[in-house]
């Protein structure tokens, strides 16, 4: 093979990786907000599932992808509200309520799918949008600027969420309620309200991540469409040390591993594909095991806030 064709393969792989990373970025940045405020939402997978179904249903039935995406966000908000009521107001154990939200989302989505769609249906899906001029740059244009609009949105979400967290008054509140809610309370910050906001924003983004999978990537819906991506997103938050840039790095690394294993499967090299499929997951476990350091964790994570609790 020539040098140019190697470049071609790598460029393709990177472009695929960027596209694959979008749903992880949506879901993981959302989960990051939730965790920064002190709420571990394990229901991401279920919310993504419901978001994916909702987006697909409205796109398919009304032939309107935008409507589908908006409805997926609405459903995400509602699921977030449920998680917030159970874990913040009722102070239920966050691990358990998150699993409940996961199962609820999964159950509703697959039931509705059976009732209203039934079998394999497909839609045309979101089309790629080549950005003028930038899209023409050799290699880089293909990697970054020839994607659908939701990929750009996901990439923009990273600097935007960084700015919100570190440069706005609201971001300062979020960082405070996730580490020392009592201190935040004594400064007149409404801990409960801030946590509600974060959980709801997080779930909305999870819904968006789900929508991406059904209307911008697979262009169909099936019960196993999410395939654990919601849980991977939670792992990516830990991997990224609760920082937007860290989350982005994790999402890209994982997606690159995925793009590599896809290429490997079709490259014709004789190797059991079952093992290559496992590769990205093994990679993330190994990286997590070596990078996990407790000290940057929001210290109040999973602890419900009770002003009158006498500790």
């Amino acid at each position, binding site marked *: 093979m020539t040098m140019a064709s190697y470049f071609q393969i790598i460029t393709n792989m990177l472009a695929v990786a960027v596209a694959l990373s979008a749903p992880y970025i949506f879901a993981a940045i959302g989960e990051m907000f939730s965790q920064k405020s002190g709420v571990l939402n394990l229901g991401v997978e279920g919310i993504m599932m419901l978001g994916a179904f909702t987006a697909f249903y409205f796109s398919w039935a009304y032939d309107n992808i935008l409507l589908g995406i908006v409805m997926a966000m609405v459903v995400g908000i509602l699921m977030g509200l449920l998680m917030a009521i159970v874990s913040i107001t009722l102070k239920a154990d966050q691990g358990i309520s998150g699993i409940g939200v996961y199962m609820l989302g999964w159950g509703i989505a697959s039931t509705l799918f059976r009732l209203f769609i039934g079998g394999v249906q497909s839609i045309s899906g979101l089309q790629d949008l080549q950005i003028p001029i930038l899209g023409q740059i050799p290699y880089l244009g293909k990697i970054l600027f020839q994607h659908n609009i939701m990929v750009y949105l996901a990439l923009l979400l990273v600097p935007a969420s960084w700015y919100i967290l570190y440069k706005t008054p609201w971001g300062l509140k979020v960082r405070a309620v996730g580490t020392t809610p009592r201190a935040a309370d004594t400064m007149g910050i409404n801990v409960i309200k801030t946590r509600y906001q974060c959980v709801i924003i997080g779930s909305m983004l999870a819904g968006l991540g789900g929508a991406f999978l059904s209307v911008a990537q697979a262009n169909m819906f099936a019960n196993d469409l999410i395939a654990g991506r919601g849980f991977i997103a939670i792992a990516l938050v830990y991997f990224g040390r609760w920082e937007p840039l860290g989350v982005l790095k994790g999402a890209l690394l994982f997606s690159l591993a995925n793009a590599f294993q896809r290429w490997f499967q079709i490259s014709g090299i004789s190797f059991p594909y079952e093992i290559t499929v496992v590769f990205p997951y093994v990679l993330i476990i190994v990286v997590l095991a070596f990078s996990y350091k407790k000290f940057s964790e929001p210290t109040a994570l999973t602890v419900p806030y009770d002003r*009158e609790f006498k500790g």
Partner: protein
Amino acid sequence: MNKILSLEMVNITKRFPGVIANQDVNIKVNAGEVMALLGENGAGKTTLMNILYGLYNPNEGDILINGKKVKIRSPQNALDLGIGMVHQHFMLVPSLTVTENVALGINFKNKFKMDLKVVADKIKKLGEKNNLNVDPNAYISQLSVGEQQRVEIIKALYHGANFLVLDEPTAALTPQETDQLIKWIREIIKDDMGVIFISHKLKEVTEVSDKVEVLRDGKNVFSVQTNKTNVDELAREMAGRDIELPTVDKKNEFGDVVLKVEDVWAKSDKGTDALKGISLALKKGEILGIAGVSGNGQKELAEVITGFRKVNKGKINFKDENIVNKSIQYIIDQGLGFIPEDRLHMGTVPGFKVKENLILKDYLKYPFCKNFILKPKYIESYCKTTVDEYDIKCPNINTPTHALSGGNIQKLILSRELKRNPVALVASYPIRGVDIGAIEYIHEKLLEARNNDVGILLITEELEELLNLSDRIAVIYEGKILDILEADKATKSKLGLLMAGVKEG
């Protein structure tokens, strides 16, 4: 927002499930005066102040400012009214900077941008004006306790407080820092600031306050102008009876060295060096006090000796055997007793019954256990005797331990450790947060053990306690022993300087 000229709390009652924390409590403070709120732990001082600050809602009673009734339902209300509070456990976010901590309470008009530079400048100015210097860009986690306290006060002033509540502000300060704070308080009230100063330390109270209000069991029991009372009277009112703390009788003969720590190095939980070459020798029948501002390696010192923490370098000889990095069980079996700092979670299993905690170190041994089966009859009778003997107040020996008061939990631990006839005992903050009656008792028991030839390493931040009990006092500073003084040559000011890291000569 009007200036607070007078602040009253009238007939305040606050009930928690199973306890009445405040019952018909009344206080009144005017601008330009310092009122000391005195009482033992659990007397209801902090609850009362949390009501004033809007953290708790009272069941009954009113708060009046300048004679007018006000509703304080959240800290935001309190801040808006001009009430600032410095909590005993500082309310700061350690992962944020000083400026960010102050900015948390600001209602920024522009929701998309905050100008932290303006905030930092104002903090600098406030600091210079009020003699409270602190670096606005430092992270809270890098600051000393004294500096953090300054940040708390600046925070209150920044948000326009003209009435300050200081909850146990001297608990973690050196004597010199305490003197400075008292001077500072006397200075600021000249600008018509009202101050409530909460403490259980009598001497400070008489130095700082204009009047004293004593709470006991959640009720007002005594109120007086400071210049018309004295320390003894206040102590009596606080405890509800005469109190006489035992003091050590001078002893010149000690036994052999039983515990010898030589050049020990160990890391803290955060991975930094907490002990940097500590050396100590404890003799039989001696109380060796360890003085120091908390966080200078006391916790780690106790933990390396008792086997809880890894030693990176150095030797610890206990009964002429190096016990460095031996198992905890082994060290216990050699006869080393331990009263840990966190008495509820490290000293006991909180959910266990009193009797289960009493035998926690012996349950595997005869006569508590035979052929791997516990002997309930023997355990019952042993525990009943112990509870009576050590005056542990509990409904019965099947009560869960966390339901006991701090003093009684401490007596439980003390009885467990002493009844095993230890050769040496490490006692970390044995009287922290316990009532004065229990302090009296615990001190008697420690002295009794000393007279029975037990070597005791006493770690505490209470200088009175150290001076009353110790035969020698070692001062720990940043993981090193700075100096060791004979108790009769040690004074509070000498210790205070050493605790701040200043060694004369």
